[in-house]
């Protein structure tokens, strides 16, 4: 008895998770899916909203779909999200002062290796 009641409750909760029908055409749908994959879910652990079925992710998907229908470009949508939640919400970090090291240090590491290996030849003539 008790467990079936519980199931009923979670079913109701789950009904909130349904994604509503977005009237997107094929191109818009592809753009939406790409944006969903680039938008981090607010409440889940490290997932993007494309992967998440949570209530909050569904709201965000709805918002993005509506912004696409209203004629916003991908960049406009992203910068809206960033203005509200910070860089955190975009799955790929921007290139700016605080991420130069992240983006460019692998090249330096690669170069250090080349110098090291070349020195091995020099030393041995």
């Amino acid at each position: 008895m008790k467990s079936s009641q519980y199931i009923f409750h979670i079913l109701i909760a789950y009904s909130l998770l349904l994604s509503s029908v977005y009237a997107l055409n094929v191109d818009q749908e592809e753009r939406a899916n790409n944006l969903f994959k680039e938008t981090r879910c607010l409440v889940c652990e490290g997932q993007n909203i494309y992967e998440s079925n949570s209530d909050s992710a569904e709201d965000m998907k709805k918002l993005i779909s509506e912004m696409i229908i209203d004629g916003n470009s991908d960049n406009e949508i992203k910068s809206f999200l960033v203005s509200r939640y910070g860089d955190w919400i975009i799955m790929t970090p921007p290139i700016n002062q605080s991420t130069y090291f992240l983006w460019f240090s692998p090249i330096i590491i690669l170069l250090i290796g080349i110098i090291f290996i070349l020195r091995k030849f020099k030393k041995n003539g």
Partner: protein
Amino acid sequence: MIRKTLFYSPLLIIILLGILFYYSLNSETKSNSPLIGKQIPEFSIERLLNDNDQFSSKDLISSETINFINVWASWCIPCRAEHNVLELLSKIDNVDLYGINHKDTKKNATNFINTLGNPFREIGFDSDGRTSIEWGVFGVPETFIVHRGKIIYKHIGPIHISELEDTIIPIIKDLN
């Protein structure tokens, strides 16, 4: 000599990493919302308790008092725990507390207010959560301090009585 020193570099790196990890263990979730210091986002939503007109950003911009905007929902258990603190907060001089009711039903939200009391001057009814996204809300409860239309501070999660005394009240004093 240089070669020998080079052998100490892994040691140095691990020590630096250790320091970083130590601080990250002790760091609390900070709320560095990009909205802090900015003008409040524009919004306009129905009122929960009367149907006459809309609760909007203009109400906050025109206000001379210190405004607190609390985002809550009747289904949110921490919000219940926070309610007493909000009652205290609303009684402070020169403070107006506003509520944004997040993804709720009118019936449940009204019940909540009728049972626990209403510390809010106005409550906006944000059934689809859109206004909350405008405010950069992650989940309920969250509280913003707004002064002359500018967002001064954001608190994530329920406000504990100690946080009211240690953090919030000094900010109020500062603004006065």
